[in-house]
């Protein structure tokens, strides 16, 4: 039997010479999935293999993916001790996730951030929060329905809800451009506007702690949005994937949507029944624990229909038993979890302070953050004109001149050009210092240039 590739090549030549064409196209939805990545994601993928190190000074500082390397060592050691492969590993499991891991995650969420009792029965596990969202949107929306999302937001949400499920993201710009805190008024306006366009909003998606801002929603806002959304007949999905990444004095202000919902019920703002039907929380191991390669996410829902849906659909996005097993052991070690979260928060805080103290010294404007792993930078003053084309050019200059790759604000669906998200946890603190110095040097150069070009405006 000849080597396959030689024959293939032969066929291709024949195709060309005969002018034959094969009509085996992809489906329409398959073709749509071929849409190329936006340039910034492409740059990220290329830069991954060419990162800055002291011995590779031409390399890139990748600050555009929400990934933390700060506490790998802690997890490494722990997982090494959990890695047995048990006898039951071979067999099919429950497609909502094995009971042991569901229980371990439920207990962990209850203990560390949800603030309410979390029952194992209400937790379903899938291969990453991405998969959780994919299933969630299929369950709650028909194709063409919409999902309201306070902007700016995590760029990949669009892909997660649209590619397989045909759900339209509806970004909602904040009226308050200082705090970015949304209100029900903007939500309602956005919902009405969507309906006018024939898009039926079905879900409100909130990320708390927030991405890209790294801030916390106040309790009053969560309650306001929750009550508004539920009364309007929407599902509320709160992505709390950064709930255990908090630092700084305002970290204590975090409150889970589950807790807010129970408060709303106690205050007779919503009924227990409707809250059970419509309030859902997502969590996962990729951010707080840095285990994105493990592909473990979960949904917390009391909606029996959703649980049944997960039981039937779970097999399309299940987590391997051996991984579930290792994770269960790790999470059952409460002492380890507490130690890890505290230490990780300490390291995040340290990197955040390295980053922002250098920014402050150069008067680079940023939004103070107290959670997650990134910072929202205001570089509007560097734009020659307030357009996204100018923002694109600035993004490219940062990449080409300073080898810094940030996430442009446009990718986060923020309406005003000139903002960037920078992840400060994606490299060790020593590298971060270099990266931030590059950033401030860049800003300084640009300012001098602008001053020279536009002596009046600055």
């Amino acid at each position, binding site marked *: 039997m000849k080597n396959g590739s030689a024959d293939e090549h032969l066929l291709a030549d024949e195709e060309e010479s005969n002018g034959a064409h094969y009509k085996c196209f992809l489906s329409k939805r*398959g073709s749509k999935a071929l849409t190329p990545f936006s340039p910034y994601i492409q740059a990220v993928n290329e830069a991954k293999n060419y990162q800055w190190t002291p011995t590779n000074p031409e390399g890139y500082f990748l600050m555009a993916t929400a990934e933390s390397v700060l506490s790998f060592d802690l*997890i*490494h050691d722990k997982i090494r001790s959990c890695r047995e*492969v048990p006898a039951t590993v071979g067999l099919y499991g429950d497609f909502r996730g094995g009971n042991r891991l569901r229980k371990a995650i439920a207990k962990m969420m209850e203990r560390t951030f949800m603030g309410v009792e979390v029952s194992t029965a209400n937790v379903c596990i899938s291969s990453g929060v991405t998969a959780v969202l994919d299933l969630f949107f299929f369950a709650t929306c028909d194709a063409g329905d919409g999902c309201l999302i306070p902007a700016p937001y995590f760029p990949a949400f669009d892909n997660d809800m649209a590619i397989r499920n045909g759900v339209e993201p509806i970004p909602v710009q904040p009226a308050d451009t200082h705090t970015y805190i949304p209100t029900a008024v903007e939500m309602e306006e956005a919902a009405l506007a969507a309906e006018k366009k024939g898009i039926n909003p079905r879900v409100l998606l909130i990320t708390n702690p927030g991405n890209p801002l790294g801030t916390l929603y106040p309790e009053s806002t969560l309650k306001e949005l929750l009550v508004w959304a539920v009364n309007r007949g929407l599902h509320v999905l709160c992505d709390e994937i950064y709930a255990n990444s908090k630092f700084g004095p305002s970290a204590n202000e975090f409150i889970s949507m589950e807790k807010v919902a129970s408060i709303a019920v106690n205050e007779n703002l919503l009924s227990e029944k409707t809250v059970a*039907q419509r309030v859902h929380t997502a969590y996962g191991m990729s951010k707080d624990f840095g285990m994105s390669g493990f592909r473990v996410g979960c949904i917390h829902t009391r909606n029996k229909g959703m649980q049944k849906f997960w039981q039937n659909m779970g097999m399309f996005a299940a987590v391997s038993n051996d991984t579930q097993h290792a994770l269960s052991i790790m999470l059952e070690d409460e002492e380890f979890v507490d130690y890890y979260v505290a230490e990780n928060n300490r390291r995040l805080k340290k990197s955040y302070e390295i980053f922002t103290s250098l920014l402050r010294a150069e008067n680079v404007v940023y939004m103070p953050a107290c959670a997650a792993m990134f910072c929202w930078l205001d570089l509007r003053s560097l734009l020659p004109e307030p357009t996204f084309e100018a923002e694109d050019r600035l993004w490219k200059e940062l990449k080409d001149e300073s080898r810094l790759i940030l996430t442009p604000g446009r990718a986060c669906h923020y309406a005003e050009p000139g903002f960037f998200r920078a992840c400060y946890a994606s490299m060790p603190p020593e590298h971060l210092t270099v990266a931030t110095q590059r950033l401030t040097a860049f800003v300084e150069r640009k300012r001098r240039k602008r001053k020279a070009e536009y002596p009046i405006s600055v």
Partner: protein
Amino acid sequence: MEDVNLNSTGAKGINQEQVLLSVPVAKRALAIIGGDKSVDPYYMGMHEAQSNPYDAVHNPGGCIQLGLSENKLSLDLLERWFSTHNTSPAPEYENFLNFKAIAGYPDVYHGLPVFRKLMAKFMDDVYGGGVTFDPEKMIITTGATSAIEILAFCLADPGDVFLVPAPYYPGFDRDMKFRSQVDLVPVPGLSENDFCITRAGLEQAFQESEIRGKKVKAILMTSPSNPLGKTYSRDQLLMILDFVREKEIHLIADEIYAGSVFGTSEFTSIAELVLVPPFNPSQVHIIYGLSKILGIPGFRVGLLYSWNDEVVNAAKKLTRFTSVPTLTQQILVSLLSDSRFLQLYISENQKQLRERWCLVKEALQEAGLPSVPCTAGFFCWVNVGQVVGVTSKEQELDLWRKLLYEVGVNVTPGSACQCTESGWFRLCFAFVDNQTMTVALDRIKQFVDSVR
């Protein structure tokens, strides 16, 4: 079931207040949640086998599970391997698989390069050297089910049709219809022809779909066949390839039981034939996985293999949702690197399957139950209905219920596999141990004797 699966529109007899209060789950999800499971043979059978499981000592009258296509015959070999081997990365894979590399986002959601390389080599070995697999054409997913769903998405739009030689694997209905909403049209094989499909049969099914205004996008087949337990001949495969070429549609060959061929018939992979003109390989896609050959469905490792670059690229995007954990990939790299063990395991497993099949064949012959000669997989296709004169689907289901609740064996009725002839059943024989299998076969024989 509570109010959560009320439909917002079109649901009769629901008063307005209820509609306002209840939040409908999407219409398309209702089919997945709803449906009366109490009449679905698959669920009823599973329920009975799980809630009333046979145990020689504690529940000798319980239900014996012959409805799960899982192979536990050689699991002990694998268990022993895991308990005696260190699954940390070997030095040559340290760069790819050290923890720092594996804990972060995988560079590729569709399988780490070293994992795909080893999977390709593994498949080369399993397929007996007739094919060389290219890791770059391989997309690894969380189980073959996910791979099939991804293919359905890439090749068909909702409402399009796949032609499926019948009887077929009951799970296809779920895999295709739940989310991908692809219509499956059975192409019946008949007992007089050993259930082989014909060109005429394919043509008829194709024309009927066209008349109904449906677009046929692919043929979907399991080769070796589930539930028939036999391999397709080279000629049959060429016939199918030619049909696919003529109609300019795709072919999805689920070859997940390759490697579990234990009989004397030869297994020919579609991969061996597709690269020869006039066939166009970009029309052909293979589904594979580790669940069957290694008996580790719990690892959730499946793959799609395609010569079509566009399919590969589109599928890559979708593996965001169905990516195998890097920890699991790392463990499996250790396993897949031990090719000596794997060869031993596969041949030992084939031997076990052969021996088990002999046991079953003898019993079936003694009981006078016709069956399709079994040469692959974990199941056989048996005509139990003949002894009680089954001539309809209802009678077949009556018999199935009797077998489940009175005789105490959970088998899969042919109607669940879209078989057009009533009375055939799929009997899985690799899940239970020898003693239990013997008890099950005795029960069946006794039943047959009692009704003759």
